[in-house]
Structure formats: structure tokens, C-alpha cells
């Protein structure tokens, strides 16, 4: 699933249709989970893609919708760390005003200007599934605690993976 801004941008929209991307809306996520489909969620959202090269092993704020969906649809969460994304697109600056002109959140700039991915290794590490108990009526504080728990598990996977990634 991709951010809805993609649907409004010429050619990106066309690409999304051709490859079967759908908008990252809660309705879509719920539909897929209720249909017992596997869903990959990036809880950092577009904030996560805006990380600079020097911030590549950090995690920014997580949204809370994925936890609520997991509880409501009784879906396990498999914490997953992806290492190498920062190396693939080594962003040195994000141009937010230019992005606005194109209807995008920002335009990433790399040392070679264009945000074309480099041929690098990507290491993906999966953790043990997390089964969240709940009724779907949890308040924001309770949900935030669950989000932080998932985030900590992912962060631990990143830390464990850093040395191995360096050896690749």
C-alpha cells in the first residue's frame, strides 16, 4: 500500500495502478486483514522515508493505526527491521517546497542528485510474532504503550542487524 498522494501525481499514479498498489487507507488494511491476507505496514509512514543517510538506523514516530487494526482484526504483528534502505537512497537533504510544487511531501536529494536507488545489499530481519490482547476499545495511552512495545522490538532487531549488515 502506498500513500494517497501517489494517486494524485501523474505517472506515479499510473505506475501504482499497473503494479497493483492501493492507497494506504485504514479501510484497505482492514479489508486485507479480514481476508486473511499478509499486510506489510511501515508505521513510520512518509516520515520514515524522509530520514537522511546519517539517520538511517533510527526510528521516527510511529502511527498508532496499525496497533488498533491488529487488535480489532486479531492479527499478529511480526516485527521487521529493514537495513540498507538508507544506503540504497543516501539522502542528504529533503526539499519540501519543491515537493509541494509536484504534489509530493518532499523531493529527496542524494550526492548524485536524483533519488535513484543504488545496487546495495538489503538485510531484512524478522522477530517473533507479537499477539496483542485487547477489545478494540483501548484508550490512546494504552495504544501508545503497545506501539512503543512494537517499536522497541523493531529497534532491537535493527541494533542486532547493524553488525551483520556491515559484514555484507
Amino acid at each position, binding site marked *: 500500500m502506498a500513500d*494517497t*498522494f501517489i*494517486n*494524485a501525481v*501523474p505517472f506515479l499514479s*499510473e505506475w501504482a*495502478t*499497473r503494479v497493483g498498489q492501493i*492507497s494506504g487507507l485504514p*479501510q484497505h488494511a482492514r479489508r486485507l486483514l479480514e481476508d486473511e491476507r499478509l499486510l506489510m505496514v511501515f508505521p513510520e509512514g512518509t516520515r520514515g522515508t524522509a530520514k537522511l543517510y546519517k539517520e538511517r538506523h533510527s526510528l521516527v514516530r510511529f502511527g498508532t493505526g496499525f496497533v488498533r487494526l491488529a487488535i480489532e482484526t486479531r492479527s499478529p504483528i511480526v516485527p521487521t527491521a529493514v537495513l540498507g534502505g538508507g544506503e540504497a537512497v543516501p539522502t542528504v537533504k529533503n526539499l519540501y517546497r519543491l515537493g509541494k510544487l509536484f504534489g509530493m511531501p518532499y523531493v529527496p536529494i542524494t550526492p548524485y542528485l536524483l533519488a535513484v536507488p543504488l545496487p546495495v545489499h538489503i538485510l531484512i530481519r524478522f522477530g517473533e510474532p507479537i499477539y496483542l490482547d485487547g477489545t478494540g476499545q483501548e484508550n490512546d495511552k494504552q495504544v501508545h504503550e503497545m506501539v512503543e512495545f512494537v517499536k522497541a522490538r523493531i529497534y532491537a532487531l535493527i541494533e542486532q542487524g547493524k553488525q551483520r549488515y556491515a559484514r555484507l
Partner: protein
Amino acid sequence: MKVVVTGIAGRLGRLIALELAAEGHTVLGVDKRPWPEAPAGVSVVETDLRKRPAEDLFRTERPEALVHLSTVTHLHVAEADHRMSLGSTKAVMDYCDRYAVTRAIFVGRHTYYGATAESPLYHTEDEPPMANEEFPELADLVAADLYAGSALWRYPRMDTAVLRLCYTLGPSRHGTLAEYLRGPKVPTVMGFDPLFQFMHEQDAARAVVVALSHSLRGVYNVAGPTPLPVSTLIQETGREQIAVPEALLPLLLGRLGLPRLPRGAISHLKHPIVIDTQAFRTRTGFTHRFDEYDTLQAFCEGGSPD
């Protein structure tokens, strides 16, 4: 059963009338347009639904059921007709109540939901209409749909169903999508390839008759096979796709062999309107007979429109 079909002289109206007549129903049509070759078992009153002869039909014939085709195609709607659907829908609802009609089917369009970048891919019946500010020609259709839905609480003794049909296509080569695909060159918005959802016109007519026979109550989306990207639609019908930058498209429509489209229709060439039809299928057991390629082939092999 005596069934009044409004808009009977249109292509979908005729197909519905033939389906009903084949099932042994007595069909009473109302339309401003004539249908001279109407078959046995089908009679047509040529009048505006808002006029006295239309009400006379309900008073004298006392039909049990109504099929109201409130759809006005949004490609060539005259300015004066912008409130036609709503006005005629209100009129027939009043007749139904006054003359004790027990079942009513209001046929609307899936374009009710609007086409926006933020919309979910599958629209469900509980969603509100969106993007009418960009497409004022649709406002009448949306108003008629919402007004028809109010019959559910306004006239609780009548089984009312509002069907939101996806585009129809077939050998008649009539309808919104057929108009768009009519010429050898079909315009699209450069950089966009939205999914289009359509069903064979005979399947659409059968869905309406199936809804009537099940005494449905509520709002239901009605669709057929899997939607296709508009580029595939154009390719499969042997047309030439003319991809035009969005800013230039309004200037070129109606020129250089391209069809005329209202400005608001451009959003429909950028974003998909796809409906979830699960509720209708579950409730009625309806399945389409023609898949997407059968439907496109039937359109290609169809005769010239009148």
C-alpha cells in the same frame, strides 16, 4: 405482477422490460421518448414523469412494483435538465405512496461516490458522495439517489432498494462508457490509468429484475466482473489511446475527433470508481454471465447506435 418501468425507452429500460415480460410480468412503461416496437406484454405511456398522465397510470393500473431508472447520463446533460432526476424521483415516490405500490427499485449510478485521489479503492454502500464540487452535473444524480434512499424510512410499508450500478456496456453501444469509447480516438489523462468497472447491459438488466424478485430493502452496489485499467479497455476495443496532459485536455475535448466530455468528467479519467458488490451478491445470489472480455467483445460487435 404489474411493474411500472420509468425510462423504459432507454437501452437499459428496454432490456429490463424484456426480462420482466419474459418472466410473465405485465410491464407498464413511462418515458418521454417513444418505443414503437415494444413487444407484447409491454405498454408505454409517452409522458414526463412529473405530468398528470404518469400519475394516471398509477391510479388506473394500480401496479405492485416500480423500477425507476433515475439515471441521466452525465456526458450530455442539458443545463435545463440538471434537476430532472431529482424531480422525477420525488414524483414517482409520491405516486408509489398514494397508490400503494409495495416494491420499488431505484436505479442509480456508482459515479455517486465520486472519483478522488483520497478515496478507498472499493466503495461500500455506507460511504457518502464525494467530489461533487468538481462535477456539478452529478449533483442531480446524487440528490436523486439520496432522496430515493429516504423512502426506506419515509414509506416503511414499501420494500425499497436503491441500486448503484457500475457502467454498462454491450451491443447497444449506448450509455456513458459507450459514449466515451465511441470514436476511434479515446482521450486519457497523461500519467493516469484508472480502473474502470463495467458490466454487460444484459447482466445489469437481470440484476435489476433479480433485485425486484427478492423484495430487497436498502442500498446496494451492483457490479459484474473485475475492473480493468482504462488503457486495457481502449486497447481491447481497438481504439487509439490519446494521452493528453491534464491542463490541455479541456481544450481538446470535442476537437480533433475526441469525444465531448464535461470538465468534471476528467476526474473520472484520473481516479477509479470501483464498488464492492458483496452485499448484493450475498443477498440475491446474483452472478454475472458475461466476463469483462465478453462484454468488450459484445460492445465491439454491436450495431451502430441510433
